[in-house]
């Protein structure tokens, strides 16, 4: 188990280091940052001043190691536009994005696990086919479009929910549903496949032969085994959702980390952009680690 842990940790650390390098390279792609920050009307003197002020006159490698060194101590630099520390900005916006991501995941699990179980139990029936069809439809649904349709229907025509802002829990209902939509197809298919596999196995036959009730077989014996991949994918999906929330935050004007990143891209505020890329990647890496660990705890066979 300890061996397993250390190996996972080393890989996670290496991935984070690689993403860090990529995030830095990414923001240097445009060539001369000082010129793009200064804007079209800037004079040569302005550009020089900006280059000095932001330390862009130093060699690229110095800038890189400076950034890495500071990032390791939690200092992600200063935003050019907001004139505050990037870490503060991200910390301020993170609760909105996390609320959205967790809401989306909870909705997705509440829909896809029962659907997956029912489809598996009735494998081959029209209900099963309907569930698979729903999963296909969900996969093809552009999330930003679904968001707009919900806004028109539930926000404007029915007037049930607010269409933008973060004032109350109602603000997170529509964005949460839209975000959940992106995860439901994969989670439903996985639950269904896991349950079908589990239901066909020997220990379920034994449980049946012992005369256990149907509910007990399904929920205690089959689901526990089918849950392993679902739990893993759920954690990974949360990571994808946090990355994908940029679109939904934009549609519903939720001022989370995704919205911050979108604003910063438009303003050439590259310390914020590279920091958000890094933070989201680190969260994703951490979540996949959690998924692996949960798997190892649930299924001792995986601890190799």
């Amino acid at each position, binding site marked *: 188990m300890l061996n397993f842990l250390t190996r996972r940790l080393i*890989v996670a650390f*290496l*991935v*984070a280091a*690689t*993403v860090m390098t*990529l995030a830095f390279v*990414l*923001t240097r*792609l*445009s060539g001369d940052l000082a010129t*793009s920050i200064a804007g079209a009307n800037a004079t040569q003197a302005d550009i020089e001043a900006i280059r000095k002020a932001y330390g862009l006159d130093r060699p690229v490698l110095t800038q890189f190691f400076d950034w890495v060194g500071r990032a390791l101590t939690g200092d992600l630099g200063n935003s050019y536009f907001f004139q505050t520390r990037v870490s503060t900005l991200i910390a301020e916006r993170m609760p909105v994005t996390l609320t959205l991501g967790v809401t989306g995941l909870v909705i997705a699990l509440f829909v896809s696990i029962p659907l997956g179980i029912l489809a598996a139990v009735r494998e081959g029936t029209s209900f099963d*086919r309907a569930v*698979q069809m729903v999963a*296909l*439809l969900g*996969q*093809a*649904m*552009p*999330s*930003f*479009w679904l968001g*707009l*349709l919900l806004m*028109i229907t539930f926000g*404007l025509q029915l007037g049930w929910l607010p269409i933008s802002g973060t004032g109350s829990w109602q603000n997170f209902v529509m964005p949460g549903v839209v975000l959940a939509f992106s995860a439901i197809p*994969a989670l439903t*298919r*996985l639950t*269904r*496949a*896991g349950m*079908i*596999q589990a239901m066909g196995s020997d220990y379920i036959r034994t449980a049946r032969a012992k005369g256990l009730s149907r509910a007990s077989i399904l929920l205690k014996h089959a689901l526990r085994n089918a849950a392993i*991949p679902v739990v893993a994918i759920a954690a990974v999906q949360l*990571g994808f959702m*946090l*990355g*994908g929330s*940029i*679109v939904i935050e*934009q549609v519903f004007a939720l001022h989370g980390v*995704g919205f911050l*990143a*979108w604003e910063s*891209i*438009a303003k*050439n505020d*590259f310390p914020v*952009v590279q920091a*958000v*890329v890094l933070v*989201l*990647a680190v969260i*994703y*890496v951490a979540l*996949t680690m959690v998924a692996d660990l949960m798997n190892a705890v649930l299924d001792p066979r995986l601890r190799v």
Partner: protein
Amino acid sequence: MSAATMVNAGPKRGWKSLSTWIGAVIVGAAMICAIAAPLLVPHDPFAQDLAKRLQVPFWMAGTDPAHLLGTDQLGRDYLSRLIWGCRISMLIGVTVTVVSGLIGITIGVLGGFFGGRIDDAVLFAITTRLSIPVVLVALAVVGLLGTSMTLLVLTLGLLLWDRFAVVARSTTMQVRNLDFVAAAWCAGCSRFQVLSREVLPNIASHLVVVATLEVALAILLEATLSFLGLGVPPPLPSWGLMIAEAKDYMFFSPWVIVIPGVALFTLVLGINLLGDGLRDLFGARTDT
């Protein structure tokens, strides 16, 4: 992603082949629209007519028969823009898949074929790629370097190779140990010959299925980026951009976002249906 396919690989059911046919018809129609767009459009998709702004489509009262699907906020014919948008979606979907396929298949086959250190490096590359938030990084690249079709295709191609790599790697590993590969080795074939003549043809069907699904994914992502204003540059009629431009009018005339959205949804659904059908046909696995 879907492990369902393993369990599912039973006899094909009637509805499955029907849905495959529906998918094939949608994709076929989209390909005709994409290739013959200049011949099919009833009007110039770029010509503005401010006197005829936001004309309603044919199912609403007061429609103009010259514009079946109405006109947009600048008086451009919506049907023509929709057809031209299909051309752009398909073009981007296919070119992105070519780029990502080349990268992913090369990486995956190398890892699966050689194993050992090379495979460790390949797995590491896949893990790293998956930890990068795609939409955000694509937005940042386009935001920094400016909007252009070429840049968009390259960016998405460099970001979307993961599923190709995963499937190419796992299928190559299976094929590598089969008897005919051993026979080829014994016959004195070089590594390159074994790879190109024995391995690649035998994993090709799996890769075709992945390619289909990737076209759909690339089309959705392009629409998303264009919707956020950092994808296809205006005045090109990308469906995502059409939705973004029409957003201000959607509360009064919902059809302006319904039409391009339905087109996008239908095309992606059609490609996925076709891909699922091909997967059953080939008995291929695409789960990661």
